[in-house]
């Protein structure tokens, strides 16, 4: 799902800027209701993309997914497609 890529990207950006991730900041970045954000985070953990729901640190699998996802966004941009 596209939202997983957006969420992982937001988590990585938060980690790059701060020591701790604040969920409300993530919520603003990806623009989803808080309860849905929580369920997406649970799904990310179940998929093995993050270590746990507290630290929210990306696993190697999560980083790999994010790299692939960024390639896809780059590809869509090169193809002239911009989905809103």
């Amino acid at each position, binding site marked *: *799902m*596209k939202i*997983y*890529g957006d969420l992982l990207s937001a988590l990585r950006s938060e980690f790059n800027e701060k020591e701790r991730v604040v969920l409300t900041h993530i919520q603003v970045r990806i623009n989803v209701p808080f309860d849905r954000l929580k369920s997406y985070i649970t799904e990310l953990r179940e998929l093995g993309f993050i270590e746990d729901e507290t630290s929210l640190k990306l696993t190697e699998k999560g980083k790999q*997914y994010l*790299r*692939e*996802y960024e*390639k*896809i966004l*780059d*590809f*869509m*941009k*090169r*193809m*002239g*497609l*911009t*989905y*809103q």
Partner: protein
Amino acid sequence: MSANMYPTERMIVEAVATILCFVIVRFMAKPYKLTREGSYLGLPLGFAFLGISNALAALAYSPLGFDPKLMWLPQLTRTFAFVFLAVTYLFSNRKSKSSKLLGETTISLLIIAVAISFLLAFVAPQFAFEGYSQANVYLRIFNVICLAYIAIYTLRSHVKNLDPTTLWVPFGFIFLAIGQYTLLFWYIDSSFSAFVGSLVTTFVGLAIFLFVSYRTFYSSDKERG
């Protein structure tokens, strides 16, 4: 009729174009494979139809051949391919639930394309055969319109965010459009130069898509900046 000229050359060209199209499809399917987003289905389906169209044309011109009454099938499939691509671009910038809408539209188009092909192939083949000569010209004009729309769309997209990496794709579609346009001339006046021109421009167009896909998915992170 010019459509039956140079059968061996056409068979080879169509076979190579089929291979190129399916290699491109392999790249174009990556976004859908990773995200399962319906909106990412348009591009691979478009190029898959283009590949099927080339494969059918290669078969038609091969010694095996198929019933001349089915000669319209590659042309119709090619038109479906360009419609898929045009619809993908048409809906890609629509706000509010565009992703879901595009996914549903793509699936609907797929059903319509398969249903029309089935009806013309098995229920009323005579109808398709009789109208083929005229339809061929109109379908090619329609193809050029679809490709021109996509080329303009992608050029505008490039102008909005000037980035050298987005410049290639508009040219890819422009070359495909020129390929269709020159095929139209070939069909009308049997000009050999139009035939060669259409082949060259179509291959250049496909090569551009292959190059863009390869650069995106296999260039190093350093190159990607």
